[in-house]
C-alpha cells in the first residue's frame, strides 16, 4: 500500500478550507483558530514550507480565495465575524513573523456569518463576491486594481427571499464561470437553491437560470474551466447524497425561468440547463466537488470517505473512473 505525502499545518483547530494559488505554488489554509496560514512549495524538494501564519479574523474563518496572478499575491478571507478581508503579500517582510501578509481592506457590509468568497476571473477585473447567512450576494470591485484598499460594492443580489432560521443548518457557496470568451456568469448556491446570474446590458446581475433537482443543502459548487467544449459544465455536491453535473448552453432566445427569491416566473435571456447526470455513489452527503485544470475530470468527496473521479465518456456521459479512499481500511 502506498503512503501519502503529508504535512502538519500547525492549526490548532479544524481547517475549514484550503486554497491553492493560481500556479499551485502557494497554499492558504484557514481554520476555526481564526488564523490563516500560507505555505510555499519548495520546487526542489516538493515540500510545503510555512510562509506565514497570522490571526486574521475574530471568529472562525470559513474560506480563503486567491486573486488572479496579474493582481499580485492577494488573498480574500471570510469569516463568521461577518467580514471579508483582503490580504497582500509584502515580500519585503521576513517570512514566519506574522507580518508578511498585509491587510489591505476589511469589508463589513454583511449581516450574518459569511460562508463563501470567490474572485472573478481576471478578465473581469479585480472583483470579489461573497455570500453569507443573510442570503445576499455582494460583489465588490477594486476600481483601481493596483490599489487594494478601495473596494466598491457594485452588485447586491437578494438570493434568498428570507434569511434562513439561525437554528437550522445552512450552507452557501458561489463560483464564477472561468471562461474568458463568454459573458460574466456566477452561480450562487443558497441552501437547496442553485441560481445562475449574468450581467445585463446595464451592468446588473440578473437571474439567468436555476439548477434543478436538489433535495437538500448544496454543499459545494464548481464551474468547469472552459476548455475543449463550447458548452459549460457545472457540478454540485449535495446533502441529499448526489453529485450532479449540469450542462449549460447559452441561448439566444429568452426562456421562462423561476425566480427563487420571489417565486415568480420571468422571461429572460438565459441559459439552458440540462442535468447531465447525478450519482449517489458516496452513500451519504457530498461535501466537495472540484474540477481539474482543464475541466476534464470532476472530483467529489463524500460521507463514504472516498474521493471519486468522474470523467466524461466519448458519448458525453459521466462515469466514475477512479476511487481514492481516505479510509484506512
Amino acid at each position, binding site marked *: *500500500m502506498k503512503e*501519502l*505525502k*503529508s*504535512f*502538519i*499545518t*500547525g492549526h490548532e*483547530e*479544524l*481547517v*475549514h478550507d*484550503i486554497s*491553492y494559488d*493560481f*500556479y*499551485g505554488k502557494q*497554499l492558504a489554509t484557514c481554520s*476555526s483558530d481564526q488564523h490563516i496560514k500560507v505555505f510555499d512549495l519548495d520546487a526542489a524538494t516538493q515540500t510545503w514550507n510555512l510562509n506565514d501564519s497570522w490571526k486574521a479574523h475574530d471568529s472562525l474563518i470559513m474560506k480563503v480565495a486567491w486573486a488572479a*496572478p*496579474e493582481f*499580485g499575491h492577494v488573498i480574500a478571507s471570510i469569516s463568521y465575524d461577518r467580514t471579508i478581508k483582503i490580504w497582500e503579500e509584502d515580500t519585503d517582510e521576513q517570512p514566519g513573523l506574522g507580518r508578511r501578509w498585509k491587510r489591505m481592506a476589511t469589508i463589513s457590509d454583511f449581516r450574518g456569518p459569511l460562508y463563501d468568497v470567490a474572485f472573478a476571473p481576471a*478578465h473581469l477585473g479585480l472583483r470579489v463576491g461573497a455570500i453569507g447567512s443573510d442570503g445576499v450576494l455582494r460583489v465588490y470591485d477594486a476600481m*483601481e486594481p*493596483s490599489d487594494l484598499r478601495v473596494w466598491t460594492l457594485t452588485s447586491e443580489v437578494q438570493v434568498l427571499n428570507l434569511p434562513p432560521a439561525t437554528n437550522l443548518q445552512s450552507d452557501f457557496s458561489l463560483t464564477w464561470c472561468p471562461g*474568458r*470568451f463568454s459573458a460574466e456568469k456566477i452561480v450562487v448556491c443558497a441552501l437547496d437553491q442553485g441560481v445562475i446570474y449574468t450581467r445585463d446590458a446595464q451592468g446588473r446581475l440578473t437571474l439567468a437560470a436555476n439548477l434543478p433537482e436538489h433535495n437538500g443543502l448544496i454543499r459545494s459548487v464548481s464551474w468547469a474551466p*472552459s*476548455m*475543449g*467544449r*463550447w458548452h459549460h459544465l457545472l457540478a454540485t455536491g449535495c446533502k441529499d447524497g448526489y453529485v450532479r453535473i449540469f450542462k449549460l448552453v447559452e441561448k439566444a432566445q429568452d426562456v421562462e425561468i423561476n425566480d427563487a427569491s420571489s417565486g415568480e416566473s420571468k422571461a429572460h435571456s438565459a441559459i439552458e440547463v440540462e442535468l447531465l447526470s447525478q450519482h449517489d*455513489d458516496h452513500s451519504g452527503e457530498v*461535501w*466537495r466537488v*472540484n474540477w*481539474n*485544470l*482543464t475541466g*476534464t475530470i470532476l*472530483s467529489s*468527496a463524500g*460521507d463514504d470517505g472516498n*474521493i471519486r*473521479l468522474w470523467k466524461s*465518456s*466519448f*458519448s*458525453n456521459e459521466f*462515469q*466514475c*473512473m*477512479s*476511487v*481514492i*479512499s*481516505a*479510509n*484506512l*481500511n
Partner: protein
Amino acid sequence: MKFSTGDNGQDKDDDLQMLDIPELIDADSESDSETDSGTSLPIERFSNGPLHDKATILQFQLNPNNNTGMMYESARSAIHPQEVRLYEFSLPGIEDSPQYHNYLAQLYKNFEFLGDASKYRVPLIGLVSQSNTQETRNLNNALNYITEELSRLIDQSDDDRLYELLNILKCLNAVYFITNENDRCQQLFEWINMADGEPDLEFARDIMESAVPFQHGDFWALIVKLVTRGLFNEAKNALEQSNYTTGDSESQLDLVLADMAAIFGSYNEMVLKDQFGEWKQQARELKDNLTHGEFFSESTGENLTIKKVYQILSIITGLRETLLNSCDSWYEAFAALLSFGIRETGQDSELMAKILKLATTAHPPPVSSSGSGAWERTCIDVIEGNFLKVLRSIEVLDKPTVAYVSRLFEAKGFLDQYKEHSNTHTSNLDDISGYFLTDHALTCLESGNQALVAMGVGILSHLGTSLSRSTIANYLCGFDIQTNDDLEWALSVAAKLELTSVAETLYRVAAQKSLRAGRVLESLTMFSRGKDVSSVKHNCWLVFEKALLDGCPINDALINDVVTHTIEAPPVIRQCIAPYAVLVEFYNQRSNDSSRQAVLKLFNLLKFPHLPKKYSPVLVANLLPFITLESLARLLTLHELIMIILIIDNYETEKTLDAEDAEALYTIAVAGGGGDDNDWRVRLSLYGAEIPQTVAELVTTLRKRIAAQVSSTFLEEV
C-alpha cells in the same frame, strides 16, 4: 468502403455502443483487487491518510496547475484535533517516465509531419496499388512509425499492455496501412510472429540438435509451422540441415526435397520482384509431379515424407482445407490464407471478411475479450472494420496512442460511416479524432510538465478549430511562466493565433513576477506591454514613495538610467516616472548647493495636479530647512511662501482617505534616518531644530515659520 457484418463480428450499432469510458487501471493497484462495490473499480487506498469516521468529513482541493490535490479532515461540528494534516494525492495522468515522454514526443513529431489531415483524405475503394499515392504512403508510413516507436518503448519498459497494443497496431498495419499485397503478406507474418511467436525455440532446438533431425518425429511439424508463418528461410535452413539425403544420387526423394528447399529459398527474392505467381507455379508443378505416383515406394517412411511434402506444397499453393487443418489459430490461418490463397484482396472488406470467417470457423478465437485473448478480439474488430471498437480498445491500452491512430483513421476515411449516427448525445462522432486528440492535448496540459504542455498546445494549434484556439487562450492565461523562454514561447503561441488579449495577460502576469523579484524596470515594461497603465502608474508612484521616504534616489541602476535618459523606456513609463525624475533632480541639486533650483523642483512637484495628496506632507517637510534655518533663509520668495500656505490649506480642507495614508507616510519618514547631509531630517537635527512628529505639528510649524518669514520679508520691503 463497405464493412462486413460477419457472424463473428458485431454490426455497426454494436460498434457505436462501445463508447464507454475506459477504466483507468493502475497496473500496481490491480493486484490489490479491492474494488468499489458500486462501480467495481479498484479502490486506491493508502497506509496513512485522513482517518475518516462518522464525526469527520473528508474535504479536498485540487491543484489548479497540475494533477495533484490535497485532502484533509474537517468536521460537522467543532472538534479539537490533535494535529491537522494535509495529505497530497494525485489524479491519474500521463505516465511519468522519460522513455514514455520520448515516445509521446515521437508520436507528436509524426503527427506534426502529417500536418493537416484533410490533405490526406485518400481514395478508399479499389485496389491498394491504385491508391498508391504519396498521401497514402505518408499515412502508411505514419502508422509504421508509431509501431516502430512503440517497439522501441517496449524494449525499454516491459509492459504487457504495450505488447498488446503493438499486436493491434501490427494487425492494423498489415490490413490497412500497406502499399502492396507483398507488403501485406510480409506484415501479416510479422504481426502473427510477433503476437504469438511460433515455433517455440526449445521445440525447434530439440529437433535440430537431434542426431538426424530429419528422422525426428516432429521434424515435419516444425517445417509446417515455419511455412504457415512465412518463415521460408528458416524452413529452407532446417530442411538443408536435417540430413535428409539418402546418399543415393538417383534418389527421387532427395531431388524432391532439394527442389522444395530451393522453392523455400526463393520465396523472399521472388516476392520482392513481384513474382509470387511464378513462385507459386513452381510449387504447384512440384506438387503435381508428386501425384504421378513414381515417387511412392514400398518404404513407409519415404511415403510419409512424400505425404508431408505434398501437405506443405498444398499449403503454399493455397489449398484451403490443408491450409486450415495445418494451422493452429485463426490468425495463423488468416495470414496463411491471405498470403497463399486469395492474395489479391486489395481493400475488399467483404473478401477479407470471408477469409476471416473461414479462419475463425476453423479455429474459433477466445470468447472472452479480456485477459490474454483481448488483442485477438481487437484484431478481429480491425479486420471486420469495427473501427470505433478498435479505437476504444486502443484507448484502454494507451490513451495518447489512440489520439494519433484515430487521426490516421480519419484521414483514411474509416470514421465517415459513424458521422451519420451523430446526434446531440454523441456529437463527438462528428469529429472522432478531434475528440481523442483534444482529450490527449488536455491531458498534456494537465500534466504540468513543460514538454508535454508544449505538445498539448501544439496539438490544439494543429487542430486549428476556433474551439481549440479558445482552449489555448484559456490555458495560456493561467500558464505558469517561470523563465524568459517560457514567456517567449507563450507569447509566440499567442501571436501565432492572434490572441492579443492573452498576450496582454501574459505580460501582466510576467510583470507581477518581475516585480516580486525586484526587477522594477522589467516589470514596468511588461505592464506597459500588457496595456496596464494603471499598474505602471501605481508602481512608478511606489518608486517615488520609496525615494521620498528614504530621502535619496532608489538603489535601482536601471530606473535611474531611465531618469537620466541613459537607457530608453516606453513613453508611458517615461511619463509615469517623471515625478520621480523631478524628485531625483531635487536631490541632486540640493547636494550640489543649487538650493534655489532644488526648491523650484520641489514646487513643481507640489503643484503637479496628479500628485497623490498623501505625499504632500513629506514633500512639504523637505522645505522645512529652507524656512527654518538661517543659512537658508530668504531662499523662498514671498510668493512661494504664500504658495506653501495655499498647499497646506488645500491639504487640510481636502480631508480624504489620503489623510490617514499621509499621516502614516509622514510617521515613517520621521522615523527614517534620512539620506545624506542635505536631507531635511539630517539638517534639522544638525542645527538642533525640532522635527515635527505628526502632520498636524508639521502644519503648525510651517505656518509659524512662514508667518515669521512673511512678516520679516514684509517689514524689509516696507
